[in-house]
């Protein structure tokens, strides 16, 4: 591989990794604070993409669609937490796995009912539809760069919120000690609702921004979910920082594996994960 | 007659991050003696016990069993060397009968734990040893009761019975009388005074009356550090102890 191609692939890997971070961050946040393993997280990614498609069809404005989709996702998160997830705090991981598998079924069925099964696509918003020349004949789409920047901004905002604000303080406290937060006189169940809804929204927003660069198909959530698992397991369950590092690693490993060892490329991230876990059974940044 | 040293620590330290839970502790525990350990909350008593049974690994320093360093062996190997422990919070198999609780303990010595086919109920000898352990702590009549349905005091006794059923030489007891009424405590005190004739016992306990009554050797710890070790009378009269306790103000005796 010559050096220009290497750099292009590096960009590809980082960009993919950043998108993975956006999806995985909600998963790891919800797990870290609430101890809930949400297998339906991928379904929310799918829901985000379908919502984006639907509203772009209706209104033609991507930005508007993004906002309204995020709000709807927040609502879904709120309702799901209040009605279902709430019952699970004192149960074991097995019940969480089963409940969220049931949710995957329901979301998939609803998607079929509401939007059918044809592959759909969302156009890249006009303002971001250009490409910039990169090397040789290769151009790099501006939208992908926008996605990468967006993900970095989200990461930055999350870092700020968690380390500097009151909500962040509660989140950190909730991670380490549920009783302590309760002693502080904070309504922990409200905190949980907020965190879960934010987690759902992050996943859906990832679906929205990924919509123009992916094909919107049934089952898109499950595929991405498993990749997100790899990310958060490598990073350490519950660690946002870990999810960030893990996502970049997975993005790079996946990209370079597909070029260098194509026969093994689909297995490579799992092999990589097994390797990390051999060294650190709890992931890189587990708390 | 000088009793043999069974268990020793040499310069034992445990740090949690920057926090020194245990700092440079050197103690010796003797056969057929009860060694009491007291100190205010956070003095490092439980940490010490957790290290003596292999649950925590020392940051530095050594644990010696019969002169041999055992700091690096696996937790379950401590029990195999005859170092048995009870826990601060009741830690039993609460959905099984008392007999079954002890049977698990006995089975380790009896063997057959990899026998897939032979019924666990088919060996008399195992039952007998387990029953003996129960009888030793006075739970003979509770043999076939489900552990979660006996009284709290009895559960603490059961826990000691389980340790006894492993045929240990060292008993590490973490507050066996915590949360008990006076009468129940008295039962345990009687039990321990009988047991200390046979075993090396390390007892961490907040009940000062009990510990003064039972201890052959007594160690006072403060803030993870060793303050004083000696007989009950020596410790009672030591000015440093008074100061430490008065200074802390939360333990009165």
């Amino acid at each position, binding site marked *: 591989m*010559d050096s*220009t*191609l290497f750099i*292009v*692939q590096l960009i*590809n*890997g980082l*960009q*993919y990794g950043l998108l993975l971070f956006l999806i995985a961050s909600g998963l790891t946040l919800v797990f870290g604070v609430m101890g809930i393993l949400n297998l339906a997280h991928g379904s929310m990614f799918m829901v985000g993409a379908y919502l984006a498609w639907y509203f772009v069809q209706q209104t033609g404005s991507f930005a508007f669609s993004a906002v309204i989709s995020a709000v709807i996702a927040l609502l879904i998160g709120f309702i799901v937490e209040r009605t279902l997830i709430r019952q699970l705090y004192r149960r074991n991981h097995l019940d969480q796995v089963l409940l969220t598998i049931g949710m995957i079924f329901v979301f*998939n*069925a609803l998607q*079929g*009912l*509401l939007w*059918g*099964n*044809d*592959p*759909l*696509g969302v*156009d*890249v918003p006009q303002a971001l539809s250009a*490409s910039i*020349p990169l*090397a*040789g*004949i*290769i*151009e*790099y*789409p501006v*939208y*992908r760069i926008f996605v990468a920047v967006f993900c970095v901004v989200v990461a930055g905002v999350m870092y700020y919120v968690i380390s500097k604000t009151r909500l962040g303080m509660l989140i950190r406290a909730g991670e380490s000690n549920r009783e302590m937060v309760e002693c502080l006189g904070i309504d922990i169940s409200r905190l949980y609702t907020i965190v879960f809804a934010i987690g759902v929204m992050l996943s859906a927003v990832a679906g929205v921004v990924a919509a123009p*660069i*992916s*094909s*919107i*198909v*049934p*089952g*898109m959530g499950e*595929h991405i979910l498993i990749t997100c698992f790899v990310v958060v397991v490598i990073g350490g369950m519950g660690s946002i920082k870990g999810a960030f590092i893990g996502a970049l690693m997975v993005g790079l490993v*996946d*990209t*370079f594996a*597909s*070029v260098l060892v*194509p026969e093994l*490329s*689909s297995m490579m991230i799992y092999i990589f994960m097994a390797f990390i876990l051999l060294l650190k059974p709890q992931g890189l940044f587990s708390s | 007659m000088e009793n043999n040293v069974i268990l020793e620590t040499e310069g034992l330290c445990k740090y949690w991050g920057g926090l020194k839970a245990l700092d440079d502790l050197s103690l010796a525990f003797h056969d057929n003696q009860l060694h009491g350990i007291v100190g205010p909350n956070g003095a490092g008593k439980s940490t010490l016990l957790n290290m003596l049974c292999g649950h925590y690994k020392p940051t530095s320093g050594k644990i010696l069993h019969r002169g041999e360093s055992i700091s690096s062996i696996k937790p379950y190997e401590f029990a195999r060397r005859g170092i048995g422990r009870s826990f601060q919070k009741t830690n039993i198999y609460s959905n099984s009968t008392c007999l079954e609780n002890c049977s698990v303990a006995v089975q380790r010595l009896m063997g057959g734990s990899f026998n897939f086919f032979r019924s666990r109920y088919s060996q008399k000898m195992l039952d007998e040893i387990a029953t003996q352990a129960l009888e030793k702590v006075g739970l003979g009549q509770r043999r076939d009761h489900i552990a979660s349905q006996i009284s709290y005091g009895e559960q603490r006794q059961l826990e000691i019975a389980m340790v006894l059923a492993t045929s240990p030489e060292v008993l590490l007891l973490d507050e066996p009388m915590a949360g008990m009424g006076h009468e129940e405590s008295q039962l345990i005190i009687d039990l321990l005074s009988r047991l200390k004739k046979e075993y090396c016992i390390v007892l961490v306990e907040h009940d000062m009356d009990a510990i003064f009554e039972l201890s052959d050797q007594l160690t006072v710890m403060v803030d993870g550090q060793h303050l004083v070790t000696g007989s009950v009378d020596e410790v009672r009269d030591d000015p440093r102890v008074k100061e430490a306790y008065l200074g802390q103000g939360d333990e009165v005796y």
Partner: protein
Amino acid sequence: MKNKNKILNTALLGLSLVSLSTALVAAEQDPIKVGVMLPFSGVYGGLGEATRNGLKMALQEHAADLQGRTIEFIEMDTEAKPSRAPEIANSLLNKSHADFIIGPVHSGVAMGMIKVLKGKDTIMIIPNAGVNAATGPLCAPNIFRTSFSAWQPSYPMGKVALEKGFKKVVTLSWNYGFGQESLDAFEESFTSGGGEIVKKMLVPFPKTEFQSYLSEIGSIQPDAVFVFFAGGGAVKFVKDYDAMGLKGKIPLLGAGFLTEGTLEAQGDSAEGILTTLHYADPLKNEENQTFRRDYADKFGKPSDLYAVQGYDTGLMIASAVKALNGDISDQKALIHALENTKVKSPRGDFTFSKAHNPIQNIYLRRVENGENQVVKLAASALEDPARGCSM
């Protein structure tokens, strides 16, 4: 809105079927049982639905050919899960005693079905799955196919590429049977005419993160790229190909599925892509014009390739039943009748090869204004070599 239409249509379809069957209630014979094994949920759900619509439409139109016999449909959702295929096929064979079993879309499911149905007392007709083996090593008297073998649509593209003067080509596909067979077929005709495959890339199925592959293509700079993708993957690939600036610089060739049912989602990115397939929506022949008009009237949405394949399956059944005067109890006679059917399909007339695969025209198409316009006939009456079939 769209959904309402769908429900309404389903209801209408149901009604018309009811009226159809009541009209023929006088007929004394048992109904002909047609088992349908298609995916109605998941990624392939849309394909399954179109195929079923086409099938029912043909059998309704040709109700008169059935010699008074009615049709009873037994529909089973395969979920495109191969591991469930044997069980469902078994249920249609042994529980419902279906005379015909139509399906599937997915090649893996086809393998599972063939395993159960091969040589049994039913006729299996494959309306889509293209796995070569079905009319190759696994061919059997009671297995027919109305669609194509993986080899068929891709083989003629090799010649087209040579005609266009391409010498060095990169091929790319998902790493699964159908994709590989497509690439092999292209390679077969392309290299035999002196072309060179500079690189063959296989993407793990169903991965749709194509950036690294596209970057590599950009750095190799071949004369053209030949790909096999379908459905969601095809949408994503075509859009990414454009976004990476390769469109217009390196011509994109593909097996026709690249631009079937995906053009709307692909948008402008698909313009100019050359593909070969046994059908194209705008084909000028009369059958196709009528078919497309009627289908759109009936189901409220435009027809597609999969609807055509389902439709042809229906035509084939109707014509065999007619030839036998409604008596399909003798399997040998039925197979004979089916073998000799000449299907007047919207794709143009076709007949069956010895291995029971269509002998059909393959068209070269080019995407213009969001439609696959026919450029020319790439191969006329092309017959699959049916390697390994000993029938």
